């Protein structure tokens, strides 16, 4: 005789009620709203390109070195190679957790970020070169991969690497059988479906898409995609404004407007 089945799938560990009656989520957002984003470019002086990115309580720092001479032996003679390293600070989440360099989660995230930018960066412009992307998660409140992708995109733009388009990521959770854009760590429990989508905003193409665990039959995959693209478009507006402001700031201080 198996133990009594647990109360419904969406109940969550502490039986918390995720979406209040008037449709507000735990942190007061609507189900289509993305968390508040604050980011800045060129925060590190040593890196070729760097960006600090904050989405709600998730804080990420990205640095780009390159394009430069390849350090290892594996390089392509006709195009650049992209290498990525993803590390989470020990103090990032509530419990102090020591992560080793090669542990599963960070290598998986690093591979996604690397493959993502291999599709967007114009690699043919830098033959036999290497572009290194380093992402450091400072504070983790869910959606670290999304924040990492957006931060790496800003850092690459800051480094002046040729890219065919921005890459903007957004994730969608599924709580109390409604889709919620940009779930925080509370809403993205382990046994709930979550879709992480990265798109190129101008052409609307899909760069990377990861859906974890089965969608219930009524929730269709297409509507999840629409939520994610809408969220990504919101984030893109903020990124573009930030880059515009940063570029104009540089031009203004350099004083040479018409080059």
């Amino acid at each position, binding site marked *: *005789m198996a*133990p009594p089945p647990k109360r419904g799938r969406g109940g969550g560990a502490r039986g918390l009620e995720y979406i209040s009656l008037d449709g507000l989520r735990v942190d007061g957002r609507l189900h289509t709203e993305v968390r508040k984003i604050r980011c800045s470019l060129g925060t590190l002086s040593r890196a070729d390109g760097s960006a600090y990115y904050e989405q709600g309580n998730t804080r990420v720092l990205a640095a780009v070195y390159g394009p430069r001479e390849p350090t290892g032996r*594996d390089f392509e003679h006709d195009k650049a190679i992209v290498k990525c390293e993803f590390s989470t600070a020990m103090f990032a989440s509530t419990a102090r957790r020591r992560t080793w360099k090669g542990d599963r989660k960070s290598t998986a995230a690093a591979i996604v970020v690397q*493959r993502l930018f291999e599709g967007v960066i114009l690699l043919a412009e830098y033959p036999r070169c290497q572009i290194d992307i380093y992402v450091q998660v400072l504070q983790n409140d869910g959606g670290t991969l999304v924040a990492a992708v957006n931060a790496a995109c800003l850092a690459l733009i800051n480094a002046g690497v040729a890219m065919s388009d921005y890459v903007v990521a957004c994730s969608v959770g599924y709580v109390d059988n409604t889709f919620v854009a940009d779930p925080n760590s509370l809403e993205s429990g382990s046994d709930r479906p979550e879709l992480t989508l990265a798109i190129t905003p101008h052409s609307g*193409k899909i760069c*990377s898409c990861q859906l974890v665990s089965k969608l219930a039959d009524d929730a269709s995959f297409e509507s999840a995609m629409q939520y994610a693209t809408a969220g990504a478009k919101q984030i893109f507006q903020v990124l573009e404004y930030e880059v515009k402001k940063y570029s104009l700031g540089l031009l203004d201080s350099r004083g040479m407007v018409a080059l």
Partner: protein
Amino acid sequence: MKEKVISLCEKNFTIDCIKANCRVDGRRISEARKASISLGPNWGFAEVRYDRTHAVASTTVEAITPTPDRGSEGSISISVELSPTASEPAARASLFRNTGSFIETRNCIESFVRDSRSVDTEALCVLAGVKVWSVRVDVHIINDDGNCMDACMLAVMASLMHARRPDVTVTGKEVRIHAMDEREPVPLPVHHVPLSATFGLFGGGRPFDPDTVVLDPVKTEELASNGSVSFAFNSQGEVCGVYKGGGLPLHIRSFEVCSKLAATHAVGLTAILKAALADASAEHPLSTVRPMLVDAEPVAMLAKKESEREKLAAPTSTWNATPVLDTAPPDIDAMETITRARAVPKNDLIDGVFEHENEDDQNEDMKDVGPEEENKMIVEKLIRSDSESSTEGLEAAIVPKKQRKERKTRRR
């Protein structure tokens, strides 16, 4: 790690063929290779072939005391190995097996099978806090001719559906596990069968360029493509997982084309899987509830294989430049020891080796493994299986402890 060297003209040729909708091996763009599944004599041993891509999976089920925090849930873990025989770069990379593309395959399969709740871990609980079932699926990619992702996924699901766990009676706090031959073994609680379809992506990298998707790419297409996307659907048409790790940005339209194609492909695959399961359980030798004696039937099966090999090795017409290298078959008494060893239901690759021998395109296999390695493999297996069967007696039906411990240490 340098992939197989593919020349520019081969690459361009592959892409032209795809544009003309007739692929390098004659298939249409949305046509997959025929999957053939053969479920091995032991429970939970599945062998899947997509033409030349060949994966072997095996499931072991074990009763363990659960970890305190998840006391009432069983566990399922999947490990995917790229065996050095798969392809030349794989052989060279035997030291560090975690090449980029390979880690992606493993993570992807794990998320498709485990996170999509295909096997209900709560139903794997024998007695909360005391005993739960731990299911371990090991997949080996024997020969990689492109798209080993779908082959592994199909192998994992086939192996899970075919696996059996010993029956168990719980009286109060005390748990009694019956041996496999005492009580009819029980299948695993598989709720739905997610099966994956992988597409190769082709197209220029620029923002507004059109892009094409190709179902089930072969090795040359995989090398010529710039990215891949995998969809997992079950036969009810529910999406169980999507993985696109980057590479070529894809139009929304072709993304939807892929998901529809993947849905229909999954239905077809499930039908093949069901057929294979049906005839596997019919002629399964171990299903009879008789004590484990030397069973005459396997010897007959081996003799049948022997005669088939003679037929193939008959002198072919001089025109066929490739004579079958008739390596002398191992002498009869060595075969005897093998059959006795086989009585113990442990999944040893040795059956796999013989099964390869009498596949219809036997040359195909000999060719890929190469005569020298093939001899080495057979000899190595003979020595190992002899030492194992002679040193420890024919213990209880479940996998003998020594080998399980040894497998555990090798695992960590």
